[in-house]
């Protein structure tokens, strides 16, 4: 006797999307957690956080005013001061990229496609719903995304970012944008920004930055005490985690890593080449290239990407703690030192890379560009030239979120690691 087939509820689109996301996230989390021995214990907070958010459907900011941000240039301090919670919408899911691909050109960059794909899917892993999205006018694709997001029904605030950051006009333009945004964000959250409140959030974000810097400085040690994939996990968590929880967890990690340094612990292999990672940002779960590097016996000791280093590197300095001065100071932090390739000049980025290479005693640079991200693709040439001039080996990888073609990529990465090892051997 065959039992009567039970009436089975078909997944809603949100459920389906959550399942897709969960599948993808847990696959990457498994690699991150299980393919490496000796993960720091304090990293468990972050592994669990990702699993909770992407696989178990835990909403970290339920019931709070979350404001989506589309790029690293949106001042967190100001959103926090207005009682909002900034959540970075840059997304790394292939699932979402495929959704985005349905309404965006095939040649557009994976990150923008995935970010819009997630917004389109109407699921939000972080909170009950995001109504407002702050979109800076960085690259063309993000600029045009604003219209699409409006179509999807989001309230989009266009934050004007100048394409030139060296000029005084650009600086003044951006300061004006941030001042206007400061006013606007209070309208969104309905809470006034006070002098004291802003000072406090500058301090809080500053503390997160201090924790990050502390951790980052530890990576200068040989042997390197922590793998780059863990740092990417940590900084990616900053996208959406509660600021203070994040800082606390990062400080706990610092403590553990400091102990490791004292013990001479080596998180990587004996001869692992030390890598500086740059270019398009690895955003969870698209940690494809970083993981490949570290699985190929490399170790990422530093990075220059907007999902990690650029997110937390530069700190706010205020001379007089007045609203005017603080807002301007915050504005400067997000413009002057930003090494995003959307600006006309890229000298700063090259200089940063060379400095990272030297101060982190690195062996080589790996430059990831998402195909379709024309600015990173274009800048590759000048960076490669500068690196060659400095005698810094660099591997340029053009890639996207698709899981295919890994064989080719891993061959290249491994060959690069082998050549770095040979280079180091010869130097000795």
């Amino acid at each position, binding site marked *: 006797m065959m039992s009567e087939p039970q009436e089975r509820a078909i997944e809603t689109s949100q459920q389906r999307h959550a399942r897709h996301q969960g599948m993808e996230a847990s696959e990457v989390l498994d690699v991150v957690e299980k393919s490496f021995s000796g993960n720091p214990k304090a990293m468990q907070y972050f592994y669990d956080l990702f699993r909770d958010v992407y696989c178990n459907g835990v909403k970290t900011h339920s019931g709070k005013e979350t404001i989506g941000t589309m790029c690293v240039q949106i001042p967190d301090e100001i959103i926090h001061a207005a009682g909002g919670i900034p959540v970075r919408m840059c997304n790394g899911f292939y699932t979402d990229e495929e959704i985005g691909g349905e309404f965006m050109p095939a040649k557009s960059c994976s990150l923008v496609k995935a970010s819009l794909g997630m917004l389109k899917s109407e699921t939000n892993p972080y909170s009950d719903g995001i109504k407002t999205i702050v979109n800076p006018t960085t690259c063309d694709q993000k600029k045009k995304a604003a219209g699409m997001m409006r179509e999807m029904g989001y309230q989009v605030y266009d934050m004007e970012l100048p394409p030139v950051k060296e000029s005084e006009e650009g600086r003044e333009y951006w300061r004006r944008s941030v001042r206007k945004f400061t006013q606007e964000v209070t309208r969104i959250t309905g809470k006034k920004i006070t002098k004291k409140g802003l000072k406090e959030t500058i301090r809080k974000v*500053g503390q997160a930055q201090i924790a990050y810097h502390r951790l980052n400085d530890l990576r200068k040690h040989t042997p390197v005490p922590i793998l780059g994939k863990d740092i990417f996990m940590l900084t990616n968590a900053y996208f959406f985690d509660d600021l203070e929880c994040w800082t606390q967890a990062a400080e706990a990690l610092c403590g553990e890593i400091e102990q490791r340094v004292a013990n001479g612990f080596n998180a990587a292999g004996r001869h692992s080449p030390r890598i500086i990672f740059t270019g398009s940002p690895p955003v969870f779960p698209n940690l494809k290239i970083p993981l490949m590097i570290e699985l190929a016996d490399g170790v990422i000791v530093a990075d220059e990407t907007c999902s990690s280093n650029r997110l937390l590197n530069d700190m706010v300095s205020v001379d007089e703690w007045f609203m005017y001065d603080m807002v301007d100071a915050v504005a400067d932090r997000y413009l002057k030192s930003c090494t995003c390739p959307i600006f006309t000049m890229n000298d700063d980025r090259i200089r940063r890379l060379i400095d990272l290479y030297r101060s982190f005693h690195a062996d080589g640079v790996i430059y990831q560009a998402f195909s379709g991200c024309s600015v990173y693709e274009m800048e590759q040439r000048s960076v490669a030239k500068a690196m060659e001039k400095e005698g810094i080996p660099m591997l340029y990888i053009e890639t996207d979120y698709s899981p295919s073609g890994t064989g080719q990529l891993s061959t290249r990465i491994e060959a690069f690691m082998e050549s770095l090892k040979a280079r180091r051997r010869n130097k000795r």
Partner: protein
Amino acid sequence: MNIKARIDRLDWRRFRFWLQLAAFLLLVYGGRLAIDLGQSLPTFACGYNRGATAGVCYLLPLQHQLAQPWSRLFSPAGLEVLGGLGLFLLWFVVLNKAWCGFICPLGTIQDWITGLRKKLGIRYSSYTDEQFNQLRLIKYALLLLLIFIPLGIGGQFLSHDWGTPFCQICPARMVIPLFNGDFSQWVINFSSTGKMILTAIGMFITGLFFVGSFLKKRFFCFFCPMSAFHYIFSKFALFKLKKEGSKCTVCGDCYRVCDMQIKPIADNVTKKDILMDDCILCLKCVAACPEEGALRVDILGKPIFEATKDGFVKRMGMEKKQ
């Protein structure tokens, strides 16, 4: 913790406040204790602060000496001008422009006025880039005038009424004696056309000085011919402001806190010796730099104060509250 690390973590603002106060008391009241540092001080130790100043600003004897008859000025006896200059350089070479940032009484007064503004919760003003570039030339113009007018007197092209022209318009002459209860410089001198014009301008500038330094940090320093004079010799000074361009992220933190709005401190990543003409070497930039070793102060090539993350965090009040 070694001394260097302690210095790097120093609360620079407070340290400087006390240092400035000490220097102020020494220069403005030191004469009463019979302290005499001579007449070649590279700072506004105003000679009109009679009986109380512990030394005399070099600009006063310089203008005097240059006003000698040419027959004497351009004779071997005129070499005495070089003597004064030599003494000036001896003072200057040690501290470089830190004379402005730490010792100059007029600068200290401006900082106090700024402090008052801060207490009142009024924001400061700044020049736009364009204004900055136009106004910065004024101090050179003043320097040229304070050299050529006395020379003109010595050459009998101008009357002695135009003697010590800069002192006549310098607000230090009016302001510093006030601290000794001496109001006698607050006069227009009608005894001659030149004196009258100069003292009138001087009084006008004194008025500007009070408003200006209230609204703008170190308002007068921007026009100070002493600053321009310093800059000519600053290359040879032992005290140096250095920048490690490769470590700079061009975040502009240093520029933000700069009282003198010196932009190259942030933007110039190639120049190692970053001391600019407007600089008062107050070292606020070094204190506000979050990049390890990007800015530093050297004496004789030895770093004595260096930008550190640690120090930055402490000075910005971002340390974890215990």
